[in-house]
């Protein structure tokens, strides 16, 4: 029998499959389709210290095998997350990951302090959202800037800290190393790729913000390459994501070196896709006589 358990950041995950921030709400909507305790973990919608209404205009747009979104971190704020959403998330008996974004250093630090006092298992620091005007991704482009913010957050943070990188970083491997040196316990990548769409009939950009974030199967080859580069560059565990739609996709990321996996856009395509992927990995392992994922992790 294949063993899907994963040890990382001093914790044990039931399996490597987590659901990605912004694609799974706070879990509740998917509990109508399957038992969420089967997941390795759930990442919350991207939180900010204060609530955010999100962006105006069109927010989602389909492209060939991709999705461009301009949600703009609509969220209830850290306080309401803690009182209203976290208790429900904890009841699902899986790892709960709070994804935290921000516009300023102070916002990140105050958010971290509040989350320190909760039973969140892990904090995913989002320095990579392309959909908010200042900040968010601004911290995730230059390694020096990321080093600064991650160092400060790390010294305030009492939970394991995973830093989520943007594929729009100047140099993805250098960026990952900078975050590791600043104290990140883990790196996740990729967030969405900055993209755009034009409505030629209206002669206007589709999104009010003009640029937005691309995800889904079309980004997978790029995400896989970046995960591979980062896995070669850092020692901390890496969580790979970007366009994963099947067990085969997930196994590619594991072979490229990823310890954990996140499923994002896939949750929209088929609500129980994460379960199909967990079962598919187990089947693959059984068929190929693989006992633990360590046997295939990073073999490329």
């Amino acid at each position: 029998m294949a063993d899907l358990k994963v040890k990382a950041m001093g914790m044990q995950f039931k399996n490597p499959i987590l659901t990605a921030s912004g694609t799974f709400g706070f879990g509740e909507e998917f509990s109508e389709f399957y038992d969420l305790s089967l997941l390795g973990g759930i990442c919350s919608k991207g939180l900010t210290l204060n609530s955010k209404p999100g962006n105006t205009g069109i927010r989602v747009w389909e492209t060939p095998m991709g999705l461009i979104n301009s949600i703009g971190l609509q969220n209830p704020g850290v306080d309401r997350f803690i009182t209203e959403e976290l208790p429900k998330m904890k009841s699902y008996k899986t790892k709960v990951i709070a994804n935290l974004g921000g516009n300023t250093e102070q916002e990140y630090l105050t958010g971290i302090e509040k989350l320190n006092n909760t039973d969140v298992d892990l904090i995913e620091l989002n320095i990579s959202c392309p959909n908010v005007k200042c900040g968010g991704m601004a911290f995730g482009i230059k390694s020096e800037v990321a080093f600064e913010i991650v160092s400060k957050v790390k010294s305030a943070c009492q939970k394991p800290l995973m830093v989520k990188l943007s594929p729009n970083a100047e140099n993805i491997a250098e960026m990952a190393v900078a975050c590791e040196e600043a104290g990140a316990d883990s790196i996740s990548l990729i967030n969405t790729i900055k993209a755009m769409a034009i409505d030629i009939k209206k002669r206007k950009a589709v999104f009010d913000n003009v640029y937005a974030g691309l995800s889904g199967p079309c980004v997978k080859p790029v995400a896989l390459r970046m995960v591979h580069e980062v896995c070669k560059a850092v020692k901390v565990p890496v969580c790979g994501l970007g366009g994963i739609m099947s067990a085969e996709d997930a196994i590619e990321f594991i072979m490229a070196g990823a310890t954990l996996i996140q499923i994002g856009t896939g949750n929209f395509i088929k609500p129980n896709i994460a379960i199909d992927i967990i079962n598919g990995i187990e089947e693959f392992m059984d068929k190929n006589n693989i006992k633990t994922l360590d046997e295939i992790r990073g073999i490329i």
Partner: protein
Amino acid sequence: MKTLKSKILLNEKVLNNIYKLVIEFNSEIDEIKPGQFFMLKTLDNSFLLPRPISVNDANENTVTFLYRVEGIGTTQICKLREKEEIQAVGSLGNGFNLNELNGKIAVVGGGIGIAPLLYLTKKLGNNADVYLGYKDCVYYNEEFEKYANSVTVITEDGSSGKKGYVTDYINYENYDAVVTCGPEIMMFKISDGCKAKNVSCYMSLERRMACGLGACLGCTVETKIGNKRACKDGPVFLSEELLI
């Protein structure tokens, strides 16, 4: 439980680019409310996001949809044949609240917006006055005859029924509530008419959707009490709640 996959019993052309799809469930499903929808997708990867399509009619273990072929998704869906499987996730959304629809009700549909109104009219039990507005070609009006108190057909070019726009033919003061689905311009004209006569107006809104489940926050509707999700908090809204 919500369904994920279903078998197709029928998928045929009604007229021009309008199709009727009937699917069958082999397990028990939640009760379906009029105004709810399903997210439909072919099982292959010919397109990415499932497409929201309203329930046109529902029976014990079948659901009927009426859809217009628009772009790549509906073009692929209309190629599916009897006995093939389709991904149909639902039923989703709030639907119409029948308890709020008392007294005399007008049901007003424009174009393919008539789709969800058939099941509603059926549930209203021969009480509703139905107004159906079309550009030129008329379809499905006979289905409404079975369940409505009256059916008025209006075409823009006058080729069938009355000539003009649906909004020219409704006497709002005759009704306790008006329910509408169709182009937004039409729905807002109706909502203005209702407001002037102090009549409640319920409308079913369309937004681009990625998940249809309430998770992605892609389908925002601005209301007086903040952003709502068309897929989960809607698609049916009381017009006076809206900020549009």
